[in-house]
């Protein structure tokens, strides 16, 4: 990442996505990194991601696997004394990656298309118990779940176009 140039236009995009989150206030206290659940899996630590974004190195991050390695445990949001919140930053970078059609883990896109199709991220499934019995909702006397009308699909598509 050392030979690339900062991209301030991308940085502004991220700032807009963050609404009122005060990214620029990060003073590198490393509290986020100290408590990070995914730390062992990360090539860049949360406070380093904050710094890179502040310097404008967005494009590299948006196309990297690093932003998809957050466990969303929210400890960094809780503990940041400056409300710079690496979690929200990572989410904004993920959104940018999707817009740019960068490499996005399949499961996320699958969840969105399932929601469009059936309203839910995952379809209801039968389960097999530890004694190898099989049950579905009906067998367990759980109520049927009603399917959303077509108008939902139309509106959700519109929502997905918003950036």
């Amino acid at each position: 990442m050392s030979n690339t140039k900062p991209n301030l236009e991308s940085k502004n995009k991220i700032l807009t996505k963050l609404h009122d989150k005060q990214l620029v206030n990060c003073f590198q206290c490393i509290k986020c990194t100290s408590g990070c659940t995914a730390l062992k899996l990360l090539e860049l630590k949360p406070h380093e991601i904050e710094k890179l974004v502040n310097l404008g190195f967005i494009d590299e991050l948006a196309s990297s696997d690093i932003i998809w390695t957050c466990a969303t445990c929210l400890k960094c949001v809780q503990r940041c004394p400056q409300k710079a919140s690496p979690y929200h930053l990572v989410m904004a970078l993920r959104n940018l990656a999707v817009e740019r059609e960068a490499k996005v883990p399949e499961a996320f896109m699958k969840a969105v298309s399932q929601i469009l199709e059936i309203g839910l991220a995952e379809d209801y499934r039968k389960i097999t118990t530890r004694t190898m019995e099989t049950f579905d909702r009906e067998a367990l006397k759980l109520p049927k779940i009603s399917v959303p009308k077509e108008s939902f699909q139309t509106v959700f598509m519109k929502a997905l176009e918003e950036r």
Partner: protein
Amino acid sequence: MAGQYGYEMSVREVFSKLDVELVDLREAVCCGDPVKSVNNFAANYLGARVLTLAHLTGASDLLIPCNRCHFTVSEAKRLVENDGKTGQKIFSLLKEEGLEYDPQTRIWHVIDFLHDLVGLKTLKKTIVKPLKGMKVASHVGCQLIRYSDLGRADNAENPRKLDELTEAAGAVSVDYSEKLDCCGSHLSLSHPDSALSLGGTKLKAVKSLGVDGLVVSCPECGLMFDSKQRDAESAVGSKLDVPVVYYTQLLGLAMGIDLRKLGLHLNQSPVDRLLSKIPV
């Protein structure tokens, strides 16, 4: 809830025992949690939509038994109520479906509903079979308690409500240093092996406590610790064998509700060991 029917069944049973009427939302769709990573605006639209559906039922309190849904809907509520421009955009999308947003709707999770609204005193009156001699560890889960600025169901660094509820059912809830560690479920979407190793590591710590089981209150955590425990065993290379139950299942047992009504035959972890501790 990703096949976590035991949680759903036990919530329904326990709430009916407490004379709390639950009305199912009609045409409910996803809360928006997995969409947050893809398009935050669309996720907030979905979260706000859940709130409008609650309003449609005529109820002013919305019960969300899942930590992640609870977090997503809470963030959506805050956004549409505080960010005028985004809020208006979302309200007009909702109107296209004939839905109207009502800021009065209150959001609850099972844990704060039972602890704060029902109260430990009332809860204790429903206990007919106190779980004497049972020792468990509790896992409240990340998204229910963080981040405090948003308004969460319990204290972020020292959550006690799940422990107090567990003790109200007659069991002992032990403290342990890994209590706040994450189950890793969200990583299943991008790094499934790492997710299992996170979940397995926590289960290993719980096992070393010598407790009778682990109590959870989120279907995502339940999925990791209970349904995927076998896979987690191979990820961490050790036998785990930790009985994992939902709090509502535990409470239901203490209320004298039948095992199968609480969906305890659906848990994948070795819950029989925990059940053998129940006084006859």
